[in-house]
């Protein structure tokens, strides 16, 4: 039982990380700085609970705010670059943040031993949860409450004018600008919001792992942050959640029974997933299909319609193979 609760904690925190990249991606920016923002949130909130003895929630919010402030500052210069340039610029910034913590020492003596971050050795004993009697279940509920709040807020945002504005900028900047949108404001706000969410994710990460070090916030983590929304699809927040469940729940933990093959399948299945579903696991089409199917399932009169849907699904599964055959013919001029 404990194991599933722990896994849910991990899925929760990674969902937050993915959502932080999701917000930024909506405006068409691919940011590899999310791991850096996560690091800021992790270090700040852990220092507050361990060294300053703050309560968890204000510490998490402060960590998030610190990350948001930095993200806002990065947002302005980052506006000047786009596409791959932005990917590399944010990668550089994220790495600079990580390396800052590699060189960051701030230790104070508490109860005879020194605590606090110590450069390359990391920051040990962030034991707020166990010391305050939180059970694994309670921690899990707390994390998912946070995820719930963030997801609801983003879901609402997506359906409001704000979401339309973000997407308009992401789809076509020039058109958005001609329609009178302030690109700077939109992009920087998205970056700031993404920074805040990543910071909170970092704070939670620090507290459930009890030990953080610079290596926990490397390029791979930044890559996964953007991988979740891309893999899940950008039509709504549930895509990101689906992708986190796919990667953390299925590829990492679910396939464990395969032993040595698990690691090889990890990359291979990501490649396969992108080939089969280039628009993400849950793209807009799938979502609407799924919703209407749900409606039909609830309505007994449509029993046969569900069967028809299933047949459609098989056809849909053949889409990739049709593409394959078409490409094959194209390549050999048949």
């Amino acid at each position: 039982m404990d194991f599933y609760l722990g896994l849910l904690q991990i899925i929760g925190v990674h969902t937050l990380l993915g959502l932080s990249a999701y917000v930024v991606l909506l405006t068409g920016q691919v940011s590899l700085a999310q791991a850096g923002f996560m690091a800021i949130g992790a270090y700040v909130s852990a220092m507050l609970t361990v060294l300053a003895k703050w309560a968890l929630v204000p510490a998490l919010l402060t960590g998030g705010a610190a990350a948001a402030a930095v993200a806002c500052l990065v947002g302005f210069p980052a506006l000047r670059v786009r596409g791959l340039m932005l990917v590399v610029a944010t990668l550089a910034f994220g790495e600079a943040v990580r390396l800052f913590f590699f060189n960051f020492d701030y230790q104070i003596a508490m109860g005879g031993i020194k605590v606090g971050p110590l450069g390359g050795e990391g920051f040990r004993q962030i034991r707020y949860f166990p010391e305050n009697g939180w059970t694994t279940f309670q921690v899990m509920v707390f994390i998912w409450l946070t995820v719930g709040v963030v997801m609801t807020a983003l879901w609402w945002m997506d359906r409001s004018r704000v979401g339309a504005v973000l997407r308009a900028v992401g789809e076509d900047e020039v058109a958005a600008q001609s329609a009178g949108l302030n690109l700077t404001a939109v992009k920087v706000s998205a970056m700031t919001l993404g920074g805040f969410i990543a910071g909170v994710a970092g704070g939670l990460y620090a507290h459930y792992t009890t030990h953080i070090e610079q290596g926990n916030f490397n390029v791979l983590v930044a890559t996964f942050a953007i991988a979740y929304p891309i893999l899940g699809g950008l039509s709504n927040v549930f895509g990101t959640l689906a992708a986190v469940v796919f990667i953390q729940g299925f590829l990492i933990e679910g396939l464990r029974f395969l032993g040595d093959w698990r690691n090889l399948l990890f990359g291979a299945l990501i490649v396969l997933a992108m080939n089969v579903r280039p628009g993400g696991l849950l793209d807009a089409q799938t979502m609407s299909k799924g919703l209407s199917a749900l409606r039909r399932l609830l309505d007994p009169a449509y029993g046969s319609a569900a069967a028809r849907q299933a047949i459609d699904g098989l056809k849909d599964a053949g889409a990739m193979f049709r593409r394959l055959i078409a490409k094959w013919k194209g390549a050999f001029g048949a």
Partner: protein
Amino acid sequence: MSIARTTALSAALGLALLAIPGTAQAQERQVKITGFGAMSGVVRSFGINSKAALEAAADRINRSGGVTLGDGAKGKIVIEFLDDRCNAEEGISVLRRIASSEALVAVGPTCSNVAEPLFGILQKKFGDAGDTGLQFPIFTDVAIKIGLAKISEWAFRNVPNETEMYATLFKWLKATKPNLKTIYGGVEENFAHSRATWYAVMKEVAAKEGFEIKGESKWLLEDTNFSNQAREAKKAEADIIAIAAHPFSTCGMLKEMARQGVKPKLLIGLTSSSSTETLQGCAGEAEAIIIPTSFAPINDQARAAADAVSKFKGSLDLHSGAAWENVFILKKIIEEQKVMAKPDTVKADREKIRAGLAKLTVTDGLIGKSKRTPDREAIKPYLFVHAKAGKWEVLHTPAVN
């Protein structure tokens, strides 16, 4: 993706998620010991060797009758090995999975950066009801960074005590090679273990033995250009160069030193580099490097163990040697503490094993007896090996404990 595929995929996903912690087999009594460590990434060889050593040791015990349980019945040791990919989060997940199964104790992990958070989620003080940390005994074989077991009373380690080993090494050098007076260090800054070994161990004990410290060069684990560092080392003109780094960067530095013609009178290496990796990477440049280690096939027992482990497709070295020893130590504890190994005694059995481990003052090992310290660490016997013509050879065996 439409319904059919969505359902199929989620069903597969659900099944895969549910098909985990070990389905309880209703056979005769089993004592489950779960190993975990890195089976992927650059540290994969550590996981392979630990797994092989655990399996070989269990096989040896089971074939000679198994373990005597608390009620006199005989039990078989069952080994499972899980991969944590040397990642903190995954290590925590793996430990929770193990604790949710019927395993009585875990042996692992490979990486210190996993051990640290892992020990952090354990209950700090045994019996402290206010601490909701996980209550599960871990008996580490590989993760070696100094002073980790003190994080939790559920954490035990059977890893070499580097301070002791290097102190003896420098004492021995002073006695046998009096012409060596100065030492210069090379340290892999972003690897916690390497760092700790140079700053807190080698540098300290060398100074205590009267060697003059000429400074140190620093690099990162994945660095490939060592031109500056080799030049600094050349300028220091030290008699000894001590490299606290893992095989990849140790070899990189040694190769650059060879290019720039840096030839110290003696080379000293990091304990963990006394494996086949270094020799596979740079046997030529590593010739004559001296490394203290806690394992070498120097007696019949150790040779037999090495043979047994190679049958399980692993090689026995200082790390997997500890995994092998741990199984035998645990067997003894299970018998002494009258562990029952029944499905309804799992919690009590784990506490018994913890108590047994805490009580140990001396344990048997492959090359001699180890002392146990009050902070749950080991002081293992050790010897000095050096690289000779592409092989590790025993150079000197200090008097064992």
